[in-house]
């Protein structure tokens, strides 16, 4: 039965077209009708459910084909829906038309399914989470448009359209981060959201410009923007160049990678992502964890054959650095969402590093599994925050295990997944990345110092990941609930922070709790203010489980976080082989051949160590066993460490913190990268702006004024000229059009015989012209 599910262009292309179409129509409806659209949120969610069904259905087709040994080949514009862009103009420019079409392959199938599922879950979740928001409808409209953009990005078959959707996503990210910027009832979010949205927009713009430059470089050299043609062009170019990448390709590739650095929050442009947490939590889950930030990695996957080895080294370095550096920061954060944000950056580093190491399939795989469990983690965090009445500080939580059982179970599953516990989704993908690193080192062909650096960094980062994620679980769900306690183990630290004027994002969002505490500032001890603020609502200060739309969304994602790595339900032989991790569902549909086509695939594989490609080979086997052991080891060490520090010996963290005094201070302050950016980039920019303004005011204006004076001095000619010709021209256009309009109106006398006379006269004139001409 499953075998009969083969890709049918006649039907499936229309389904694919409907996939971005549904959220777009939803967006239009919602934005046009706003509150007049009855059950707008429900409608959009329903539409998104349809999208999810379509995408999952199509993905299952792909998986089924893969499991039955059929190569899931690329379906491209040649046999699908497409339209020619610049139909006439391109010919005039002397280049080929840009054909925008649908490109659907295994990676696309997986990515679509991810976006479809996560979008649906986020829509569902938001119904509970955003309930009562002032701009509830706008929120849904925006998130629908974002979904449209993301789906379009995945489906588009050329880099130009990828870029267009990329920018659209950037815009929607900006709007969604700034969602609370229109809500003055919460001063903290009000300020933070405005600032964070701007920061995110501007920071990613740096990367986007790089991407555009890179794309244009490729377009200039290759004359095309289609993926398939780009890959082939790269292969031919390199072959003609004696197997070496030309230097410009390294440069262009790095420019393209710049886009990834911006969008996927890689070092050093990662600074926007933690602040993007100013947006509503569902947005964080969808945009800043599962989909948009993954687009950068997706881009790398699409552009991989264009990357020279040198570029790949840079990519490896950046990815590995990001992975470990973000992980260290994640260990020190107390804000629930901040931990997850840093974890996201770290995981994105894993993916980028994987691509750099040649494990492009592994990177893509991790992108997919990560989307599931990270979305689930964020939504669980949202559920916790919602349950704790918009408190985000982990130090004010604890013991929620009993009060929010569903959330607890879901979050724990996904934490196990991200930590790389066996049988969970993250295990397979992280294992594949470690394997890529190991094979990279073992193989002479690809060996470089970067590989060792990457492997070590990634292994440590993986251990750190397990540590800080379980730290999160233990702090949030274990122990006793600290939200209501006046005195607990963190109260001194909190009071000190409050005294130092450090604002916290939590506890301020109060659509339903009044804004009484907004006035009396943040210097009051938290417990007291919590009572004062929420006192009028008897049950409000007790954490509670979230409503069903939220928990259902959590359960769907948690299920995928558990089983997303390996659908052994589908295919028994795959289950037998799962120890080898060889036949995950993902690898059955995405291989280098199916990603880039046979010719380019083989060529791309040529530059990759064979261990990554073939698990049965000597290197592959050796690498694989070591990789599995290493992953198990780091995961276990991280989990045990977290358990020891946050359950067994809860006094130790403070001691360690004290011991590490300066180091902790540096990490806690995010390595001062924001400050460095301010000092090195922003401040000079501002200074430059000030300088240019000065130049403009003093010199340019002065010059202009001088000329003006000279003119006046010379005589009235200039003024006359100005008045008659410049003003005159502007006025004349208006006058002539008005005047001619009036003149034409005079012709329209309403008298038919005069019309006839005019017509005869006009006809005679025409005839005369034609006769005399």
């Amino acid at each position: 039965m499953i075998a009969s599910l083969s890709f049918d262009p006649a039907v499936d292309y229309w389904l694919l077209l409907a996939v971005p179409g549904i959220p777009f129509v939803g967006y239009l409806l919602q934005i046009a009708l706003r509150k007049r659209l009855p059950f707008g949120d429900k409608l959009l969610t329903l539409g998104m459910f349809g999208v999810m069904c379509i995408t999952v259905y199509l993905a299952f087709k792909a998986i089924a084909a893969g499991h039955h040994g059929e190569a899931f080949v690329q379906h491209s514009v040649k046999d699908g829906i497409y339209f020619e862009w610049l139909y006439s103009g391109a010919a005039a420019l002397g280049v080929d038309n840009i054909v925008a079409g649908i490109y659907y392959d295994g990676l696309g199938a997986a990515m679509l399914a991810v976006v479809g599922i996560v979008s649906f879950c986020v829509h569902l979740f938001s119904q509970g989470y955003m309930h009562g928001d002032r701009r509830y409808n706008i929120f849904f409209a925006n998130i629908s448009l974002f979904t449209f953009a993301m789906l379009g990005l995945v489906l588009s078959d050329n880099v130009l359209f990828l870029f267009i959707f990329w920018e659209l996503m950037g815009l929607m990210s900006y709007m969604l981060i700034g969602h609370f910027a229109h809500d003055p009832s919460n001063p903290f979010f009000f300020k933070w959201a405005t600032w964070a949205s701007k920061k995110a927009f501007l920071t990613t713009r740096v990367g986007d410009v790089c991407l555009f430059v890179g794309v244009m470089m490729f377009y200039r050299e290759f004359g095309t923007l289609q993926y398939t043609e780009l890959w082939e062009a790269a292969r031919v170019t390199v072959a003609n160049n004696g197997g070496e990448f030309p230097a410009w390709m390294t440069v262009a590739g790095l420019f393209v990678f710049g886009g990834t650095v911006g969008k996927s929050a890689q070092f050093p442009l990662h600074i926007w992502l933690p602040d993007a947490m100013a947006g509503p939590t569902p947005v964080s889950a969808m945009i800043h964890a599962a989909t948009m930030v993954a687009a950068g990695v997706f881009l790398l996957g699409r552009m991989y054959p264009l990357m020279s080895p040198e570029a790949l080294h840079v990519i490896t370095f950046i990815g590995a650095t990001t992975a470990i550096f973000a992980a260290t920061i994640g260990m020190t954060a107390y804000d629930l969402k901040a931990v997850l944000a840093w974890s996201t950056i770290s995981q994105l580093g894993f993916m980028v590093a994987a691509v750099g190491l040649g494990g492009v399939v592994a990177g893509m795989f991790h992108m997919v599994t990560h989307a599931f469990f990270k979305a689930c983690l964020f939504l669980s965090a949202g559920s916790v925050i919602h349950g704790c009445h918009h408190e985000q500080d982990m130090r004010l939580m604890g013991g929620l295990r009993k009060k929010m059982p569903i959330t607890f179970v879901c979050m724990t599953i996904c934490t196990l997944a991200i930590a790389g516990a066996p049988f969970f989704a993250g295990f397979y993908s992280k294992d594949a990345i470690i394997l890529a690193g190991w094979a990279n080192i073992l193989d002479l062909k690809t060996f470089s110092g970067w590989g060792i650096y990457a492997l070590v960094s990634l292994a440590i980062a993986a251990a750190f990941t397990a540590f800080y994620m379980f730290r999160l679980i233990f702090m949030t769900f274990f122990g006793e609930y600290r939200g209501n306690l006046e005195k607990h183990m963190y109260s001194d630290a909190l009071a000190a922070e409050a005294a130092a004027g450090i604002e916290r994002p939590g506890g301020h969002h109060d659509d339903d709790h009044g804004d009484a505490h907004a006035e009396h500032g943040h210097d009051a001890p938290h417990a007291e203010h919590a009572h004062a603020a929420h006192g009028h609502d008897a049950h409000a200060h007790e954490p509670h489980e979230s409503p069903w739309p939220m928990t259902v969304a959590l359960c769907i994602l948690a299920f995928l976080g558990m089983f997303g790595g390996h659908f052994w339900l589908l295919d028994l032989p795959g289950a037998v082989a799962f120890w080898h991790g060889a036949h995950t569902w993902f690898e059955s549909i995405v291989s280098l051949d199916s990603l880039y086509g046979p010719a380019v695939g083989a060529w791309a594989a040529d530059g990759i160590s064979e261990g990554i490609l073939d698990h049965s080979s000597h290197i592959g086997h050796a690498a694989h066993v070591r990789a599995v052991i290493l992953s198990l080891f780091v995961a276990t060490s991280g989990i045990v460490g977290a358990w020891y520090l946050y359950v067994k010996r809860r006094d130790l963290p403070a001691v360690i913190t004290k011991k590490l005094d300066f180091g902790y201070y540096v990490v806690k302050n995010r390595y001062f990268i924001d400050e460095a950016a301010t000092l090195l980039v922003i401040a000079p920019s501002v200074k430059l702006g000030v300088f240019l303004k000065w130049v403009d005011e003093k010199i340019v204006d002065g010059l202009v004024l001088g000329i003006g004076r000279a003119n006046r001095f010379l005589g009235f000619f200039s003024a006359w000229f100005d008045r008659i010709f410049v003003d005159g021209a502007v006025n004349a256009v208006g006058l002539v059009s008005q005047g001619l309009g009036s003149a034409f109106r005079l012709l329209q006398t309403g008298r038919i015989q005069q019309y006839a006379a005019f017509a005869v006269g006009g006809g005679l004139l025409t005839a005369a012209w034609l006769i005399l001409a």
Partner: protein
Amino acid sequence: MDQQTLQRIFYGALGLILLVVLGGGLAAAGWPGAAFALFAFMTLGGGLVCIWERSVVRSAFALMSTFMGIAGLFILLESDFLAMAQILIYVGGILALLLFGVMLTPPDMSERKLGRVLPGLGIVGLAILWVGLKVAATAKWAVQGAPLDGRADGPISSAEAIGVGFLAVDQYVVAFELAAIVLTVALVAAVYIARRRLSDVQPSRTRAGEVG
């Protein structure tokens, strides 16, 4: 000049022109020429009178002269069937229709005449004359060069040829049928628009059941 004098001058001039063209036609081409001159005069003179006269009824009758003259020209052009059709349809049908119209509308004697007619006549006439002369001087008509009276087989009755042409598969049958549709549509339209009912005058008070 008062109206009376103008009328006299106009009709006097017309009479003179008639004499001149008749004589000219006779001199130029014998009796056929005279016949042509007569019919041409009927045609154009009728048109002139039609424009000149201020009574609609008179104008309508002048137009009849035009139509009859054209019928005569058709006979000269060996299209006797057409001539009959011209008289039957134009004089018998269209003109009768026009006369109905004339009678259903009141006479309008306030018509200004010379001041309004002459300048227009002059300008348009001159322009058309200019164009006409240029055309006449340069036209190369697709003629076979056969003069009117040089034809061996003499006048033919075109009725049969036309009748066959109407119905022959590869000639005019489509046009014929289309003409039928045109007439049907015109009939329906004319009847609908000319038909008057109470409800047309008082659109807001349509009485139930009033149909027709």
